[in-house]
């Protein structure tokens, strides 16, 4: 997919706002009449947890655009990097949890969902998958589901490694590109999978781990973090993750602590009211009072 290797993004792009069905999910939260086709967001929505300014590295950015970030800490950092008009809205996943609280009669979660650290369309990772699998098998006691990023899931050889290990191999789908092929239910499916499991683990601290912690799952990061091609060291790289959030590292972690941290990082305590969110995102105001 040539377009994916070097995104031909024009200056006015906001297509990342639709990744993972983020815009759709917020439209649903805001009770927009047609949440499957949300109107344009008047700004850039942070589309993944990061330790930079909230935008993906190299994102072409139009000066003067608003930036919607997940947490106050990201807002501060973003300001320090020269960004202005940075508004904390919270992570779309946190909104999903608000809309879909865990049912009281939900089946008992079981096993572990494992997210091997993934690259993306522009950067591939290199590392020893087998070594990682061995460590996961050694640590995790229940059944393990390996959730691969879409491009790794498509690579039969990689998938096979995890299948041979006896893992159930899944993929949450394609996050979409250039307003096309979005899995609008990406986060819904992810939440469903997270809730099936007792633990969420990864070899690198990433959005999925925070999501799991926010959803009340045991969250742990361990194993070879693998190396990302052309990794950008601007914000400290992988070693910083380990230093700054050591609470999530190790085979066992403290649930209360990781949950509290997830609430901070995903802005779960700073979610906007639907009407407020409409106003912030530049969506039409509701004529009826939303519950």
């Amino acid at each position, binding site marked *: 997919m040539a377009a994916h290797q070097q995104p031909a993004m024009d200056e006015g792009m906001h297509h990342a706002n639709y990744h993972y069905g983020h815009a759709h999910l917020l439209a649903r939260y805001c009770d927009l009449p047609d949440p499957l086709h949300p109107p344009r967001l008047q700004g850039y929505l942070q589309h993944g947890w990061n330790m*930079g300014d909230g*935008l993906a590295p190299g994102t072409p*950015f139009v000066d003067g655009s608003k930036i919607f970030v997940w947490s106050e800490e990201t807002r501060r950092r973003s300001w320090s990097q020269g960004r202005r008009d940075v508004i904390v809205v919270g992570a779309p996943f946190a909104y999903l949890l608000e809309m879909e609280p865990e049912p009281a009669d939900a089946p008992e979660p079981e096993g572990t969902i494992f997210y091997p650290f993934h690259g993306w369309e522009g950067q591939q990772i290199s590392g020893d998958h087998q070594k990682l699998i061995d460590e996961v098998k050694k640590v995790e006691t229940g059944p393990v589901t390996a959730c691969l990023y879409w491009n790794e899931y498509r690579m039969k050889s990689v998938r096979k490694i995890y299948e041979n290990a006896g893992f159930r191999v899944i993929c949450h789908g394609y996050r979409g590109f250039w307003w096309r092929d979005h899995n609008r239910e990406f986060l819904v499916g992810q939440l469903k999978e997270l809730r099936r499991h007792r633990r969420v683990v990864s070899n690198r601290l990433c959005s999925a781990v925070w999501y799991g912690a926010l959803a009340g799952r045991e969250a742990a990061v361990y194993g070879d973090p693998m190396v990302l091609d052309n990794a950008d060291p601007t914000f400290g790289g992988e070693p910083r993750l380990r230093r700054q959030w050591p609470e999530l590292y190790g085979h066992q972690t403290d649930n209360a602590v990781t949950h509290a941290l997830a609430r901070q990082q995903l802005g779960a305590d700073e979610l906007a009211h639907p009407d407020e969110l409409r106003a912030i995102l530049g969506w039409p105001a509701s004529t009826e009072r939303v519950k």
Partner: protein
Amino acid sequence: MSERSAALLPNEGTDFAAALSAPPVNNLRRIGGEMFAWSDRDPQRSQPLPRGAVLRHLLRQYAGPGRTVLVAGPHSEEVVAALADTGASVSWLLRSLIDAEEAARGNSRITVLAGAAVKLDAAEKFDLVVAADGVDRLNSAEGEQMSAAQLVDRLAEAVQPDGVLLLMHDNRLGVHHTVRLEPGARERLDSDWYNTDDETDTQRPASQEQLTARLAQSGLTVAAAYAAFPEPAAPTVLVGEGLLGEVASPLRPRLGTALSQAFAGAFRGRPVLSDPRRLVNRALRAGAEGTVAPAWLVIARGPGAAPAVEGHELLIGDARGTFAYEVTSAGDQVRTTVLEPLEGPIEREGLRRISEPTAPGADVGYVLEERLEHLAATSDLRRMRVELAQYDAWLRSQAQDGLLTGPVAVAGLADVFVTEDGPALLPTNWEPVESVALETAEIRAVWSFAVQLITSGQPHPWPITSNAVDLTATILGMVGQGIAADSVRAAVELHVRLETAEYGLSLSDQHDRRLQLLAVSPGSASVDVAGFRELTEALWRQRYEASHLLAMMDWTEQIIKSRDLQVSKMDWEVQFYKKTWAGRFLWISRSAYRVIMRDGRKFMRGRRARKAEAQSNAVR
């Protein structure tokens, strides 16, 4: 608004690859909360770093071999180096990892702690804690945030029982905030992810008393407190106990002059709401300089056997460099003592930096410039002539063969202190290497005063439309000295040299400055501190002048119309006389009549004279 993406684009800003490949430093400890892709040393991203000779002088009093020092937050290298030079064991807390690594590499004698103040080891205590940058840059963008009050507490907790805390605390009521005219300031700096001017924080100590009380809660006693001017980051004048708020102090006139010079230097060319010198001057009259001081510098001692803290009434020092001196009063005498000498002789533009400031010993008197301003405002021309005559005589008495040497040659009227024994010179910064013509020196002093009267919108008894040269001519005329255009030009040249020595003007700046100063008219705004009030005042004067010019133009227009009519009528008459026979006849008749009348009268006068002469001869 800056929306730079320096950190995001590899070809701009810091070379991270180089930074990462640099060898690790073993005097750096990362304590947590350190910021990546960030530097407080970049003036485009963060506030200036604290520096200055008085700061360095004070700090060194409490550091020394065997003593541990914590420097909290970004400071200029010179401050930290001064501490390390004492032989103390210095730890330096920096939130920026880039700054921390650079500091560690550049100063092998110190330990650098990279991170936020909240991550400081609570068990670690220091003999001296230095926070000349205040508390605003002790939080990082990462992790837990502490309020200003908590940070003050945290610094106090880091002091040994027998230790000392030196803290510079920004005053939100400070004159530097009051006069600020900086549209978009809130958005300008990348360091202001929280507004550092937040005046709604009810816990933050808002006065010197509140700061003292806050420190007392942590067991520290403020042993010396100073009002710091003109800016928190570069204090050049510190006013301490004995002078602070004491309107009767004999040091008051020196303080006024020192503050005026300090603000002129710090705010030169900076747009402000109003010239801070006027506000400070009013505060000085009210003894309220502590209330409007840009910052308070407090030196607090722990409850144990902390070193003695020496107080100073007035400390004055360079913003850049080492030079600092103290002015004290003892009984009715005033003494100036150099605390830190110049690093070496400085000569610029034919001027030499003065290394031993001297001050008149008498404590009773007044600054000549202030007195003249007052007399100008009250239109007291008689006393003004007396003052100027005294000044003129004093200046002439210092000259030899019409030439002046030493500081007096470049002293302004603000540098002259008039005592019972006559005028004397206050401490100044520069003296000419070669002598200066008396006339040039005097014209410069008076012209400079005239410029100030005009550009600061001060009331004076002369026409509002007078320009600086007009006023100079009038004022010097009071002492019987006329001025020529060339002599004003020479005086302005001397003034530009003085400014170049003081502020390091480039050749192009000097050229522009010369033109600006030579053209000071009623419509000129301030020539040093660009105050909005002074600008609107100049605009008002321009309009005032323009409205009168318009009225005069109307009047002239009417007069010309009227004259045109008269001329036209006369022209018609002339043409009538010249062109028609009747006219010619009348013209000839009138001319003949005039000739007859003229010659007839002449004849009669001659006849009467001759008759009278004959009669007088007959009487003899």
